[in-house]
């Protein structure tokens, strides 16, 4: 009998160890990681409810529990959609990783990190995931700070924050065991709730504990940062919903949902204000992450009104937006050695790099939730829930929207401006983009449009993300 844990955790870890040995052979390494991640994602999507694959007369039965050191790791059918999404991200990011000159460890470590996120979501008791999340942060170091450059303060701060968050979750876990035996112990509930919420605030990089994020984004390769952020955001939001699902005492705390909504709103507004004043392109990536995290928190805060569906609808659009923005930015940095990463240095890039410029702007517009683009259905869904919340949040949401639009218009203005030496546009060099860039960008653009025009197509694919949660919708 096979086991889901072996297939989606042990085998990927083994593959990543193999890839570490052959990291210098770029083509072989990339081929292996693409085939394996594609296969793992497809298998997770296609796995039947009963975990039995029938090939002719043969039946492959998968167990979903794996005992280890007296505890268990469990990947059930309900978890497989998220697992598929994580390996899909590995597949997408590895298609362009080597051509974008990321770290030579990218193939191996991207696979390993995805497997570790799956492990974090599968370990029982699930609070042990805190240590695994710290392990993931440490494993990210070679990607975020590759050899040949001095270690920046952002990476070090990132590891520090993750290390501080971990004990808080474990201590709350220990307190929780007491709460289960004495559910009326309000002092314990308060302590555990504070510890849990504080640790999640650090993990989510909520303002004001977000400082590591813009620093890391500035120091590290955008393609690598976006990959790590996509995995982190997708997994941590679901992990937080697990908390709310598992612990009735937490979800029944008075004002918790209001706090979550306002935390989300504060994130949206403050990240958009910071975005509107931003001058460095790499940092835009970090603030976009915070903006998206704000929406995710808002949707969790609106769980009882059905807000959680946002996580399912927005899974692929967020992935596409991050991929589109970081790909175009990385390509521009790579193609233009004089580009110093500042927005004002983008002047006239549209005339030389039309496809990349379009992808860059469309990704940001998609994050903003403009119609016919990928994120529109998800953002529209959340906005429709707001009038029922009765907190006049719509006004704040509009302010948040305005901030993002300001940075988008600033970028567009620079991209289409003529060059400073007043050279006429027609005499500028024609597009310097290769066929590969054109194809990759076009695919991303096409997927963004399809996701925006036919939202049901992709949200149906990821509807299983919410399968493990039944109790969260009901207040006991």
């Amino acid at each position, binding site marked *: 009998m096979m086991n889901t844990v072996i297939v989606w955790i042990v085998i990927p870890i083994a593959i990543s160890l193999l890839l570490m040995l052959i990291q210098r052979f770029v083509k072989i390494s990339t081929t292996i990681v693409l085939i394996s991640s594609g296969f793992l994602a497809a298998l997770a999507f296609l796995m039947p409810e009963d975990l039995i694959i029938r090939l002719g007369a043969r039946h492959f039965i998968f167990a979903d529990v794996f005992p280890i050191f*007296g505890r268990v790791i469990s990947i059930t059918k309900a978890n497989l959609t998220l697992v598929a999404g994580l390996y899909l991200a590995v597949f997408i990011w590895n298609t362009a990783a080597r051509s974008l000159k990321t770290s030579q460890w990218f193939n191996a470590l991207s696979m390993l990190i995805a497997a570790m996120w799956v492990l974090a979501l599968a370990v029982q008791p699930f609070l042990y995931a805190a*240590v695994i999340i710290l392990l993931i942060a440490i494993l990210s170091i070679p990607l975020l700070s590759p050899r040949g*450059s001095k270690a920046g303060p952002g990476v070090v701060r990132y590891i520090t924050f993750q*290390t501080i968050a971990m004990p808080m979750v*474990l201590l709350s876990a220990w307190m929780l065991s007491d709460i289960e035996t004495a559910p009326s112990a309000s002092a314990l509930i308060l302590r555990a709730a504070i510890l849990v919420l504080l640790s999640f605030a650090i993990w989510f990089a909520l303002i004001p504990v977000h400082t590591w994020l813009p620093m890391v984004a500035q120091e590290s390769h955008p393609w690598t940062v976006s990959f790590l952020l996509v995995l982190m955001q997708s997994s941590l939001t679901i992990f937080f919903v697990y908390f709310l699902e598992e612990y009735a005492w937490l979800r029944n705390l008075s004002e918790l949902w209001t706090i979550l909504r306002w935390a989300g709103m504060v994130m949206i507004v403050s990240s958009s204000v910071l975005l509107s004043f931003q001058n460095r392109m790499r940092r835009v990536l970090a603030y976009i992450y915070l903006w998206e995290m704000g929406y995710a928190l808002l949707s969790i805060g609106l769980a009882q009104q059905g807000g959680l569906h946002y996580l399912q609808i927005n899974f692929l659009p967020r992935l596409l937006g991050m991929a589109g923005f970081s790909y175009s930015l990385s390509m521009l940095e790579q193609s233009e050695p004089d580009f110093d990463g500042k927005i004002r240095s983008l002047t006239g890039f549209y005339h030389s790099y039309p496809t990349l410029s379009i992808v860059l702007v469309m990704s940001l517009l998609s994050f903003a939730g403009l119609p016919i683009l990928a994120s529109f259905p998800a953002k529209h869904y959340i906005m429709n829930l707001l009038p029922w919340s009765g907190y006049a949040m719509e006004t704040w949401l509009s302010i948040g929207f305005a901030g993002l639009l300001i940075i988008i218009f600033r970028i567009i203005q620079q991209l289409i401006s003529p060059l400073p030496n007043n050279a006429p546009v027609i005499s500028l060099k024609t597009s310097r983009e290769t066929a590969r860039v054109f194809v990759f960008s076009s695919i991303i653009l096409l997927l963004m449009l399809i996701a925006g025009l036919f939202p049901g197509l992709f949200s149906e694919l990821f509807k299983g993300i919410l399968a493990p949660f039944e109790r969260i919708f009901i207040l006991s």
Partner: protein
Amino acid sequence: MSNLILTTAVILGLIAGHINLIRRKWLLNVFGLAIQYLCIFIIFPKTESFIPAIIKLIVGLMATLIIYLTILGTGAVKHERISLKLSAGEVFRGLSGLFLVLLILIATPWLQSEVFPQSSRPALILSMGLMLLGLLQLGSKAEPFYIIIGLLTFLSGFELLYSSLEFSNLLEALFAMVNLLLSIAGAYFIVKDLETEAS
């Protein structure tokens, strides 16, 4: 006799943590780290067998050894005399550390009765002391090497505290991995920074 050993281990562990906080001498810091792990081994709550405590000691010493061998291998150690004179920054860190330790000594009885009744007093003092000294180090130094030492100090304190509350083989295995990977990360930072300086 047993109490004397425990008290000595607590004092030694806190002094080692203090040295790591105050001084910026690589070899001294590595030595201090090893002493910390040794003291944790002595204070470690006695479970059914000695194995968890021994594993913690071995992992800690291995983490220390990884950093030490990296320093030795890269030739990063300069033959500097250890001066007894303290700079203003060192005095500040020393006094801050001392203040924190005093705070812990005052707060321990309350902490033990109200929050951590399962933990012994020596374990509580040493674990809280190391955690706070580690945090202070994280806040007062910026170089990756010292940050890693600070993180290892903070984690070793937390592991001691948590082992007095709950024990899990899986968690201990994960802690061991975290410690070893952190020390490898420290070694990576040392090598990387030296390479960058050389080029």
